[in-house]
């Protein structure tokens, strides 16, 4: 008893504690202001721009009426929707088959197959489009396969984007298929249910939300992608290319804003559906389930294997074509091996500087983006007070998901280039590229961070408050180390996307801040298609390299922290 010294009751300092709350308040307010400045106010700027005439007077919906009355513009809506629907159908079907093969069959080499199928995720959407030119273009190896149709148009766009969107859909559907309960299948078998009926009554309902979610993700990706239609779309105009043409080609900013606002609608719808699906899915996951262990079935396994091989052949074919073409002197006349296409400094398009700029931009984006997004997610998820402000911050963090990159980029022009804006000095700098890219990819990272934070004990903050340890010390000593894998994941996601993004930054780069992905676009535009392919290939291998480093780091981390990272 005597060893327990009585603690003096009043050894806390009221001033320092007020400071702690003040710090939290400043943190939340800072987050709100950041998102206000980088997302909401630019969006407001583009909305108001769409209702102005060229001299800046308010004209209501006149621009929209003019848009609808211009057939060449209005046709883009149909085009965009057509391409998005067809691509979604193709991608979701293929992804379902492949995901089923990966999760529910005993076909060989599943790990390797999955890895190869993720390939397209590491390249900008421009790269498959450039491959299409080599494969099916006027001098394409496989031109005859198209039976007289031209690749420059909807066919090329659909193939390129199907290729590019496939990994995203595969991941979502795989996850849905892995969250299943083996007992359901055992019951079905005990009741002598046929395979088809089992698939329709057990499998499909359990992955319903995964399919819907994958569908909308692909639909939005296609609708808002700008790279592929730019390279391979030919005369087939879609909403994304229209914005670019109106702004860059015709300097018609008002009409660019109008198209942007129109593009915002389907994206908003997809966003709403995605939120709804996410909420439904949570309920599915809470039940405790037995993992399903598939049993071998020769016919099923080998036919699925054949389909997967076909898909992989296409992936390797498309990526391989780009790699091959980047090392060829002059397709198709001189097939000699050369490194000339990588002499970027000899071309118009920014040269190696562009690549360095890209690396720099991606690095800053990953660094600042991760720090910013994670600390905001922490404030949203773990604080006790300021409930209203925290909810507001969370809602604001969800907005970027609904905003296509091109729209955000154009919005930045209107907002940051305005002479009245004190932040005007950012325009044309590296900083604005970083800011725009962070804002563009904010939501996915925010959700990753929130999920990771939700998984750690909800009472850490209460415990440290009772021990009179300030929240930021617990954040530093406990929350951050525990969430390190999620932090790495966010950083890599930001890095890869920053490297490959075209849409968000195409309006914002200056001659000093030329980026590699933009230079692919520009070189292709100028007819330097082999160097464009070379730069695309370079980006792809950079991403693969970064991913490898990530993999190594995670493994080292896991080994080092094995002591405490144990499943209980």
């Amino acid at each position: 008893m005597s060893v327990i010294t009585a603690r003096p009751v009043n050894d806390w300092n009221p001033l320092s504690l007020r400071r702690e709350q003040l710090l939290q308040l400043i943190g939340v307010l800072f987050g709100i202001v950041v998102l206000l400045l980088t997302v909401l106010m630019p969006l407001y700027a583009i909305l108001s721009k769409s209702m102005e005439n060229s001299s800046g007077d308010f004209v209501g919906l006149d621009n929209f009426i003019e848009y609808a009355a211009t057939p060449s513009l209005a046709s883009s809506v149909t085009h965009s929707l057509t391409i998005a629907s067809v691509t979604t159908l193709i991608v979701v079907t293929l992804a379902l088959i492949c995901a089923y093969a990966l999760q529910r069959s005993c076909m060989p080499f599943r790990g390797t197959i999955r890895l190869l199928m993720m390939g397209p995720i590491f390249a900008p959407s421009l790269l498959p489009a450039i491959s299409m030119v080599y494969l099916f273009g006027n001098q394409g190896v496989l031109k005859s396969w198209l039976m007289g149709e031209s690749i420059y148009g909807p066919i090329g766009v659909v193939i390129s984007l199907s290729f590019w969107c496939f990994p995203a859909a595969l991941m979502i559907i795989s996850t849905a298929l892995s969250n299943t309960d083996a007992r359901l299948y055992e019951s079905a078998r005990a009741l002598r249910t046929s395979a088809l009926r089992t698939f329709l009554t057990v499998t499909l309902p359990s992955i319903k939300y995964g399919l819907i979610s994958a569908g909308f993700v692909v639909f939005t990706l296609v609708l808002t992608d700008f790279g592929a239609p730019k390279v391979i779309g030919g005369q087939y105009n879609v909403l994304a290319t229209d914005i670019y043409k109106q702004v860059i080609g015709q300097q018609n900013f008002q009409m660019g804003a109008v198209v942007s606002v129109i593009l915002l609608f389907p994206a908003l719808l997809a966003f709403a559906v995605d939120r709804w699906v996410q909420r439904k899915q949570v309920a599915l996951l809470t039940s405790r389930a037995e993992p399903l262990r598939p049993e071998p079935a020769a016919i099923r396994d080998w036919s699925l294997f054949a389909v997967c091989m076909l898909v992989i052949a296409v992936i390797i074919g498309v990526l391989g074509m780009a790699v091959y073409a980047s090392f060829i002197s002059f397709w198709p006349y001189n097939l000699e091996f050369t490194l000339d296409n990588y002499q970027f400094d000899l071309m118009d398009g920014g040269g190696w500087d562009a690549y360095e700029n890209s690396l720099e931009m991606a690095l800053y984006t990953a660094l600042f983006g991760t720090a910013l997004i994670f600390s905001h997610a922490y404030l949203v998820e773990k604080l006790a007070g300021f409930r209203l402000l925290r909810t507001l911050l969370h809602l604001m963090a969800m907005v970027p998901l609904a905003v296509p990159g091109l729209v955000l980029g154009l919005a930045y022009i209107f907002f940051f280039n305005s002479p009245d804006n004190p932040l005007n000095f950012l325009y044309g700098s590296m900083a604005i590229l970083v800011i725009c890219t962070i804002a563009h990819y904010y939501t996915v990272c925010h959700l990753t961070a929130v999920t990771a934070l939700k998984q750690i004990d909800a009472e850490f903050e209460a415990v440290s408050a009772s021990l009179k340890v300030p929240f930021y010390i617990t954040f530093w000593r406990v929350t951050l180390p525990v969430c390190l894998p999620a932090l790495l994941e966010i950083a890599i996601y930001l890095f890869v996307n920053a490297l490959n993004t075209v849409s968000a930054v195409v309006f914002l780069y200056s001659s000093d801040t030329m980026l590699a992905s933009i230079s692919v676009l520009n070189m292709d535009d100028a007819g330097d298609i082999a160097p464009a392919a070379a730069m695309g290939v370079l980006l792809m291998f950079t991403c693969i390299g970064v991913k490898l480093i990530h993999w190594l780091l995670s493994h080292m981390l896991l080994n080092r922290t094995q002591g405490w990272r144990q499943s209980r």
Partner: protein
Amino acid sequence: MNGAYLSIKNVSKSFGDFTALSNISLDIREGEFVCFLGPSGCGKTTLLRAVAGLDLQTEGEIHQAGEDVSWLTPDQRDFGIVFQSYALFPNLTVAENIAYGLKNRKTSRSKLNARVEELLEMIGLPESGVKYPSQLSGGQQQRVALARAIATSPGLLLLDEPLSALDALVRVHLRSEIKELQRKLGVTTIMVTHDQEEALAMADKIVVMNHGVIEQIGTPEEIYSRPKTAFVASFIGQMNFLSSRMLDDGKVQVGGQLLDCEHDKLFQPDNDMQLAIRPEDIRVRYNGDATNTMPADVRHVEFLGSFVRSELDVDGIMEPVIAEFSMNDVRDLQIAKGSRLMLDLPSSRIHLFESAR
């Protein structure tokens, strides 16, 4: 000042339209071990978190050590807390976890180490300082959480269902350890639990709660033998409830029987009410001091080791009556299925409650 260490005065808490606590008042003396007992969802945790300042009450005041702490943040109050989930920091060793609150206080390293050693000794894990929480069993983790909470010698210890996540055997063991530790330290303690056995075994004072109100406050003995409400009577221990009627002469009519009852409550004559008696209070052997005898048939007998639980069919009463008899009674009176008994319901053991409307 009424000498209470912790005073909860008219505390209410609502979540939107839902009232989780209504008008809770309670005094706790220094060094007392108090249990908040009640079914899940009755507001125990909400009240505990209000005391800690983790979720502030909507109305009412809380005074601790003579100071109004009602609107202070948790870090401005003086308490240690242990949660059902342990909430141990997974990336810190056991020793680092325990030292977590001490580090902040500019204690010298040697003093700090000595204190951690002392606490590890106290919870019976002297060798485990270098281990990580995931390398310990649930019971050991909960001990570490307890050590971390008392490391800074807080004036008030709050325990939210600290034993619920543990196996039955560990639970009983840890129960007595916590109780002993508390007695040794003399720290005022509030423990939340939904387990009546736990509360009866550990508490100096039990606060029985239901639907956000306090049903009764008292020692375990008082709560058990003199339940104030039908809810308390039914929630703690076993209880037979028989619908009955208060007559003009103060007697209570149950079925066809008239019973004498001692009670301190005022009931309107000619009122429907509930008569309650515990199974172990029903007697079958008496030496002429019987107060309320009634004949019954044994419908069913269940052997439970040192005693027998039997289901009785009492003449004139619809509801089955449960009674517990010692093995001696069973042997001597040859109680078995189908036997006929003469029961005594001692008037001092009968509880009366308003009939539930």
